[in-house]
């Protein structure tokens, strides 16, 4: 019997501080064992449990996309015991992972449609995985138009800035970045995500929307999507809840009869409106 609680060993290949507040660090991990790499298949939106023996384990969305072979990326917000340890760990060290876990984004449903991606703050990790996946030449024809609205409080808090610059240059993705307040170097938009969405007003026709961000952003953006006539069946979000096992046993992350860890973390609003508001 395979023990789903045992982490597989990964090596920290590269670590990079992402934001000006230094609270977000991206870890690039490579597989220690070839067999583990071969059997690791994931889709954007799935997550892993990262483990530092002696400190514990915590769940993180996979920020790299399946087309980036040989390694996995995670962006870690420094908040508690495990995340602080993940901020201090040095390159070349070993980190345990369990995964991939969860359902991931419904890429079958997205096929052939336009995609609207709305992100806020450091919730951009699995959205980055999703966008990078579709921007790869192999996958670009799988969806039609890609529109991305990404907001942060300040320019320094936007994740993956080098990559955002590259995306801006491309003509097969429409990227709109916005900040709550700019600085002297900021040439882009200043404004809140819901207002930017209203202004851009992407068509909801044959379009799926994915929205991830702080609850306050979602609260005000969701009504704008409804006003644009997005049906609940085509609005998706990825939820976070306190988790332990990640495989639907420990009971912690349920919302109604569903578990965020194995039935989620990606849910449509049509699903969520039928569940208790336990999130």
């Amino acid at each position, binding site marked *: 019997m395979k023990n*789903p*609680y*045992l982490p597989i060993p990964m090596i920290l290949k590269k670590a990079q501080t992402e934001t000006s507040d230094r609270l977000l660090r991206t870890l690039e991990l490579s597989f220690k064992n070839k067999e583990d790499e071969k059997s690791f298949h994931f889709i954007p939106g799935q997550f892993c449990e990262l483990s530092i*023996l*002696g400190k514990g384990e915590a769940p993180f969305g996979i920020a790299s996309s399946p087309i980036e072979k040989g390694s996995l990326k995670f962006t870690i917000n420094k908040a508690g015991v495990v995340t602080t340890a993940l901020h201090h760990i040095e390159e070349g060290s070993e980190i345990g992972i369990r995964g991939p876990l969860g359902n991931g984004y419904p890429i079958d449903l997205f096929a052939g449609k336009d995609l609207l991606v709305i992100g806020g703050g450091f919730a951009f990790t699995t959205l980055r995985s999703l966008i990078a996946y579709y921007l790869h030449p192999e996958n670009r024809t799988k969806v039609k138009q890609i529109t991305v609205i990404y907001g942060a409080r300040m320019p320094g808090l936007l994740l993956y800035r080098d990559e955002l610059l590259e995306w801006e240059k491309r003509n097969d993705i429409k990227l709109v970045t916005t900040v709550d307040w700019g600085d002297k170097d900021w040439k882009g938009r200043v404004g809140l995500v819901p207002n930017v969405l209203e202004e851009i007003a992407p068509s909801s026709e044959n379009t799926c929307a994915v929205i991830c961000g702080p609850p306050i952003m979602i609260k005000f953006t969701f009504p704008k999507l409804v006003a644009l006539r997005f049906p609940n069946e085509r609005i998706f979000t990825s939820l976070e809840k306190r988790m*332990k096992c990640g495989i639907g046993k420990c*009971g912690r992350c349920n919302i109604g009869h569903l578990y965020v860890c194995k039935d989620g973390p990606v849910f449509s609003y049509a699903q969520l409106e039928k569940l208790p508001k336990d999130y």
Partner: protein
Amino acid sequence: MKLKLNKKDVENFLKGLIEEYDLYAPAQLTEGVSVFKKIDRPEEVNLTQPVTQKPAKEAFFPQSEVMFRYEETGNRGQAVSTEQIRKERILLGARPCDIEAISIIGKVFEAEDYTDVYFAEKRKRTTIIGLGCNHPLSTCFCSSTGGGPFNRAGSDLFFTDLGEAYFVELLTEKGMAFRENKFFKEADPKDLDLMKEIENKASQKVDRTIPVEGIEKRLDLMVESPFWDRIHEKCIGCGVCTFLCPTCHCFDMTDEAVNQKGQRVRNWDSCLFPIYSLETSGHNPRPTGRERTRQRLMHKFNYYPKNFGRVACVGCGRCILYCPVQFDIREALVYASAKRGKGQKGKFK
């Protein structure tokens, strides 16, 4: 084949089991505290308690369990799993409600997508000897939740206390392996008659009237009901009902490490504790007793049934017996099921 085990032979029967197996059976630790534990000496076993304080789930899902050990913390530790158990096991003297509960937990822990190897390994290597309940308590309502004091489902062997002897039934292949046990004697037809008489008497004593059927559908309509505002008022959130519940299976996972060596451990946890769902950010999706008591009852009578087609309650009555503020789950079920006219709110004590 009708068998019996004379009471005078029990001590030697137990000795035999202890030699060959790891034996788990009910034992009185101190006054009022009875648990299922690993037995070293026959005299530890106490088969007279109708409902042990802690349920038999401990034999498969210990309150605290090491999942794996490592010799070095930090970045170079090699985790060594502890799922393998040393010896075949016997669970003796578990009551039908507790045995039913193990299969309820099994549906979660032995699900097709992921198998909880710690639970599954123990279950695979355990022979269960069930024991009928001659004297059910006033808090027992197993007959309302699909079981009964002599429900044999899940038992490999089944004992009935006849006074001078135990009537012995071999129910499964694992049970048939005990056919040749030298302490099992052939039973007389009158032993069988006595067993049936005891079973009938006991079955009549258990409350069948608790409205469990259809509760899932009723609760579907009650997610935002004022019912939950009332129900949590007297709950002090001690969690004893969840710890002593034979079907509750939530756990926490933590690392314990001292001087480089360490282990990952899981411990029973409870949805009634505020920190159970508290996130690092400070956000708590279940901020008050209202959401937490709702979670406990909804999980048993609505969420679990949606996933597995039966309620996750076996009517053992422990949560009623040991609640410090006399919350009675039966009253909650009666209230939730009562048909009320429009405008009538009904009362919940």
